[in-house]
């Protein structure tokens, strides 16, 4: 690529400083907003994943179940699709565990005349079945078996959380799309205005033998430079905001619960490249209209 293409592109940017600054700010803001959604989803997805890893169901048995029933149940549950293990927890074991968990308050349990806890199975799922939908399906299947009192899975609220996140995701994607279109429009418009300011010059260049490609190249450089720079500024803005917020989190108790981190290098590169692509497309649209004549 020849140097004078860059020279011309830089000249164009300097000659239309205000316009280009406004465009740059718009691109940066769009990238910032869209990428902050991405950052949010990335972290919530990860969070959900770690929560789901521990997903398990507790199956409480009716008091009337005898040893043979228990063996049958264990066999039947373990044969269900998606179940990796069904471990029997006797009521005695459950009480002992409870005492350990209660620690100093365990003396409260001393006064009990009989063990109020039921027998139970702890059901763990195969990794590929660790989803909300699967555990819901399995609990229904287990509940249908004989001698079952009820099935509980503590992560029930994850399902609710997931549907809230999904709403956010939808809104986020819609807004991302909107910003994308708006940015595209603004870049295309900027290029168009520069094109009009250079109309006479372009006509003369044509007359002395310039090809369309020769005329277009600086505009593409300009569009991609705006896009790339906007992408970098947007990413930098996001990082600063992220740094600020995660600092606050670290000072609070939720630090371990919410181990949030920044976008991966690939995603950062993706955002900058995507924003350059928008610059390119914006140019393409305007040039196509303009150079038709």
């Amino acid at each position: 690529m020849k140097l004078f293409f860059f020279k011309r592109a830089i000249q164009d940017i300097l000659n239309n400083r205000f316009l280009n600054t406004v465009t740059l700010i718009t691109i940066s803001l769009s990238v910032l907003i869209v990428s902050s959604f991405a950052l949010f989803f990335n972290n919530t997805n990860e969070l959900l994943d770690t929560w789901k890893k521990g997903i398990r169901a507790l199956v409480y048995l009716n008091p009337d179940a005898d040893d043979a029933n228990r063996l049958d149940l264990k066999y039947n549950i373990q044969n269900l699709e998606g179940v990796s293990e069904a471990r029997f927890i006797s009521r005695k074991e459950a009480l002992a565990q409870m005492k350990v968990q209660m620690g100093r308050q365990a003396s409260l349990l001393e006064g009990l005349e009989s063990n109020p806890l039921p027998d139970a199975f702890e059901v763990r799922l195969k990794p590929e079945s660790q989803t909300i939908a699967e555990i819901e399906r399995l609990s229904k299947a287990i509940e249908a078996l004989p001698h079952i009192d009820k099935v509980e899975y503590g992560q029930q609220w994850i399902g609710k959380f997931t549907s809230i996140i999904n709403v956010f995701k939808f809104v986020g994607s819609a807004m991302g799309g909107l910003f994308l279109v708006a940015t595209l429009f603004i870049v295309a418009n900027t290029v168009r205005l520069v094109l009009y300011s250079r109309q006479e010059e372009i006509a003369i260049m044509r007359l002395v033998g310039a090809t369309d490609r020769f005329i277009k190249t600086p505009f593409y450089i300009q569009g991609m430079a705006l896009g790339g720079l906007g992408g970098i500024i947007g990413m930098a803005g996001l990082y600063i905001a992220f740094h600020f917020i995660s600092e606050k989190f670290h000072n609070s108790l939720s630090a371990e619960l919410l181990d949030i981190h920044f976008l991966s290098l690939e995603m950062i590169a993706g955002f900058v490249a995507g924003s350059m692509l928008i610059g390119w497309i914006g140019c393409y649209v305007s040039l196509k209209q303009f150079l038709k004549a």
Partner: protein
Amino acid sequence: MKPHEDALIRLFHVYKRYGAYNALFDISLDIFRNEFLFLAGPSGAGKSTLLKLLYLGEALSEGQILIDRVNLARVSRRRTPELRRKLGIIFQDFKLIPTKTVYENVALVLETRGMSRKFIQKKVNSVLRTVGMEDRQKSFPPGLSGGEQQKVAVARAVVGEPKIILADEPTGSLDADSAEAIFNLLINIHARGATVLVATHAKELISNAKGRVIQLKEGKLIA
């Protein structure tokens, strides 16, 4: 000379109309390779219009034009630059880019042809020296006198060493000395093999010249 084989530019019954007005009327003409041809005629005769048709600045209304055996009607938009690179055009209104320096205006021609920076520098400097504008390299066209602009326009037309020079009133804004210098430059380029077509209404230019003279009047060829 075998006329038909050596004709570089051929016009067959060419018409150009602006609305109902005939700017050119049934022009048939052969211009030969390495010819120095004058296109004479009063203001409004259609000289500039004829040149415009040759460089595809305007489309003709009727007839055919061949340049170097290429029918201009068949030259697509994409291939227009190829045709124009065979031509060095001195426009009557100069058509210099006001926001570019003298140097950049002339260098542009070579840049579009993908020449190296070093070559461009050497060539542009030498051409600007020839037309006497080497010390105005960094000036912008609006800051030049009409004659100075014309010299730059001439420099831009010849810098690419085109096969064909189309010169529309190339000395119209020049004093006698400068005009002679520019004319000698055109004669020089002709001597190196180029075909030169000069449109002018300046009778003194034509009477001194040795080349063929054709006369246009009210859009018609009269001699």
